[in-house]
């Protein structure tokens, strides 16, 4: 099973009754797996509006005695951290609360490569890092034990390569514990004396540290007369093992830590006393490296430390076996016939494979329209974007100018929309999708209204969380049983923008004129653009395609003199045939949306039969 499946399985074996999450790669499959068994196991599983809400609802369950899991991606923990740094003091009650955060080194599917372990340090809560698939299950179960025993939330940290790889896992029984609510603790707040609660938390952590000294999740493989000790955590343990094996004759010891906050200080110090040199291998930041370096001042004689802080391991990007091999080579003073990457010799053969919007995706229609409007305005248009499929706008002729956190598009727009008095003379368009709108756009939009910012807010509403696999959200058209739809239109109208209109993102012509007239109005303008996710459409209705097949009129086509349809619009279904020098519609890719008809300036793309 995958690391994420193993985490979900561990939660089931620990007897959870409640799970809340917001989808985000590489964490999504944890809650997805629990959704699959929710009915059978009698578990409440939900996609919350955002990660902070997810953490709040799971804390409530845990307080009432129901074991709860809260999973999210790295950036999600930033959203939830405000609550976490209060919850740590109040405690998580009798049920048990485990927060799983999946970091994404190298940002395969993220806009940064943050190390979320520092939240465990900031919140002073226990942190566990699984180092393989078996561990992922077992450590999640252990996290619940710790959380219940000490009534603290426990953070489990995975990374992309563990979450999204698969290995063999020996499973245990799913807990048949009955889950009945109990009365809440008194005083689930930390005022007026948060420092007392802080002291109590620190005392809990001391007891956790004591217990961690004996934890089986910390493994040492020591070699006699070891020249070098490798300390690793997480999936880096497998990379370290593999690299150490390549130097069999070199007497290298290996300590892998599963309990990384608080650290098993005595055990580590004991091992450091016996070591002359230490190499740290961990994903993202030098978290263990800093902690263990600072711990070493208590030693009679400290070993020499190597890792990210000395440049032996790169401080950015992802770990792999090669990184460890290279560091060991350097430390052991060995020459290895390095297999250099041979890319340089064959660069011209390695054509790039850029990401594109799917065939028929209405986000392409939107950016095409934006591009047209921007040209008409002499380039004086700034687009502040957001997180979702439509983030690919940054690759679409750089139609998107900024892209940061969930909800930042409207916040940045709200700022840009107040700069006219300083000479800022571009029109501002902020963009967000529907799931992102609910997640984090409301405060920014209300701010823009309240401050009379001059901007157009375009909501690309395809009524699903498309990027991560069509999870239901409050605005989804199709809701599961017992869920009540919340309509974006009603929310926006309540905020009372100066101008509001609903547009159709499948119709490029009307969208261009709507955008062009709207951006020239004064004040706060909101456009709700009805959009379509073609992948979701096909998922709902297998084999579904639209009703507007297109053909190319070769008499009207200006061929290589124009090429706008294939070269600029960029739909995967409308391609250039370099043999005939005509554009061609690929029938097996085309979803028959008809959007491209509006793109040809010579009317050579026609509706077919």
């Amino acid at each position, binding site marked *: 099973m995958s690391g994420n499946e193993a985490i979900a399985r561990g939660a089931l074996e620990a007897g959870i009754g409640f799970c809340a999450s917001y989808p985000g790669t590489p964490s999504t499959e944890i809650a997805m797996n629990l959704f699959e068994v929710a009915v059978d196991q009698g578990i409440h599983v939900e996609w919350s509006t955002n990660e902070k809400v997810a953490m709040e609802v799971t804390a409530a369950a845990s307080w009432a005695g129901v074991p709860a899991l809260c999973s999210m991606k790295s950036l999600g923990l930033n959203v939830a951290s405000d609550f976490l740094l209060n919850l740590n003091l109040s405690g998580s009650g009798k049920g048990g609360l485990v927060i799983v955060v999946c970091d994404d080194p190298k940002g395969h599917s993220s806009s940064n490569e943050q190390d979320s372990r520092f939240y465990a340090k900031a919140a002073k809560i226990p942190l566990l890092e699984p180092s393989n698939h078996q561990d992922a299950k077992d450590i999640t179960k252990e996290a619940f034990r710790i959380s219940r025993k000490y009534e603290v939330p426990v953070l489990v940290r995975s990374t992309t390569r563990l979450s999204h790889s698969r290995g*063999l896992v020996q499973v245990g029984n799913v807990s048949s514990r009955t889950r009945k609510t109990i009365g809440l603790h008194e005083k689930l707040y930390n005022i007026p004396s948060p420092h007392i609660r802080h002291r109590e938390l620190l005392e809990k952590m001391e007891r956790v540290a004591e217990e961690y000294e004996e934890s089986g999740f910390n493994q040492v493989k020591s070699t006699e007369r070891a020249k070098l000790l490798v300390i690793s955590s997480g999936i880096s343990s497998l990379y370290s093992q593999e690299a150490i094996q390549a130097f069999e004759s070199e007497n290298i010891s290996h300590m892998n830590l599963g309990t990384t906050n608080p650290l098993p200080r005595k055990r580590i110090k004991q091992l450091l006393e016996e070591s002359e040199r230490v190499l740290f291998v961990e994903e993202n930041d030098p978290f263990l490296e800093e902690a263990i370096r600072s711990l070493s001042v208590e030693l009679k004689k400290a070993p020499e430390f190597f890792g990210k802080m000395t440049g032996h391991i790169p401080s950015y990007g992802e770990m792999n076996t090669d990184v460890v091999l290279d560091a060991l080579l350097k430390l052991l003073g060995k020459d290895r016939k390095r297999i250099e990457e041979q890319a340089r010799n064959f660069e011209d053969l390695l054509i790039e494979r850029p990401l594109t919007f799917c065939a028929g995706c209405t986000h392409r229609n939107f950016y095409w329209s934006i591009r047209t409007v921007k040209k008409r305005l002499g380039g004086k248009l700034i687009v502040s974007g957001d997180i979702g499929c439509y983030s690919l706008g940054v690759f679409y002729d750089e139609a998107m100018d900024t892209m940061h956190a969930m909800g930042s598009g409207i916040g940045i727009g709200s700022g840009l929309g107040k700069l006219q008095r300083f000479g800022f003379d571009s029109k501002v368009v902020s963009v967000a999708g529907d799931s992102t709108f609910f997640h984090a756009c409301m405060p920014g939009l209300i701010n823009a209204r309240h401050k009379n910012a001059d901007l157009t807010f375009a909501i690309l509403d395809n009524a699903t969380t498309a990027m991560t696999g069509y999870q239901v959200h409050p605005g989804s058209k199709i809701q599961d049983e017992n869920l009540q739809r919340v309509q974006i239109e009603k929310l926006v109208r309540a905020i009372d923008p100066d101008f509001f209109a609903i547009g159709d993102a499948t119709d490029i012509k009307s969208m261009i004129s709507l955008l062009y007239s709207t951006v020239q109005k004064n004040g706060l303008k909101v456009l709700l653009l009805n959009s379509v996710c073609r992948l979701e459409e096909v998922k709902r209705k297998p084999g579904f395609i639209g009703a507007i097949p297109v053909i190319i009129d070769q008499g009207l086509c200006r061929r290589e003199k124009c090429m706008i349809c294939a070269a600029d619009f960029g739909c995967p279904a409308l391609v250039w045939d370099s043999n005939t020098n005509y554009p061609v519609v690929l029938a097996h890719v085309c979803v028959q949306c008809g959007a491209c008809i509006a793109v040809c300036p010579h009317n050579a793309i026609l509706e077919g039969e």
Partner: protein
Amino acid sequence: MPFWRVSEVREPYSILVAGVGGQGNLVCGRIISEATMKQGLRPIVGDTFGASRRGGSVVTHIRIGTRDWGPLIPRGKANIILGLEPVEALRTALRFAGKDTIAIVSMMPVPPSNVTSGNVRYPDLADIKKALESICQQVYMLDTEPVMKKLGSTRVLNSYMIGAFSALDDMPLDSKYLRQAILDLLESEMDLTAFNEGTQSLL
């Protein structure tokens, strides 16, 4: 009891499947790992599929051994590259292939959007072959297009490629387990036919 089909095969045995979204990379990984388990060995499968639905490359790393190995193959250490797409095969080979690598590559290109838009030219297959040959121990370029036409769908390309892989001499997995894994996971006659065709493709 773990069983290595060929005794001189060293652990870990590493397979890379290189392709693009929609080609069935992940299914390849599942089939090979299923066969590995049937044989009593331990598979670790690492997938890179972040943006696969949106036209990106997809690479699957498979490590086979008696214990768990890292989910990423080290530089130059792939034993096998199964290339579902020529340029993607070369892209992974440049990093992961070495003098022991055998590459089995489908010659059917899936042109990226910059090629279909007419902005970039897809490289010559002969040049890709030459490049691969300069890096790998052995390269099989398979003319898969007519076979897929005959079979009726490019969707069975992955089963065909696994069939080709199963016909190699020095590889640890028994062909019968791979065949069984295809039956168990895909339950498709067409895939089984593709697998059988694949076993003849290296001759």
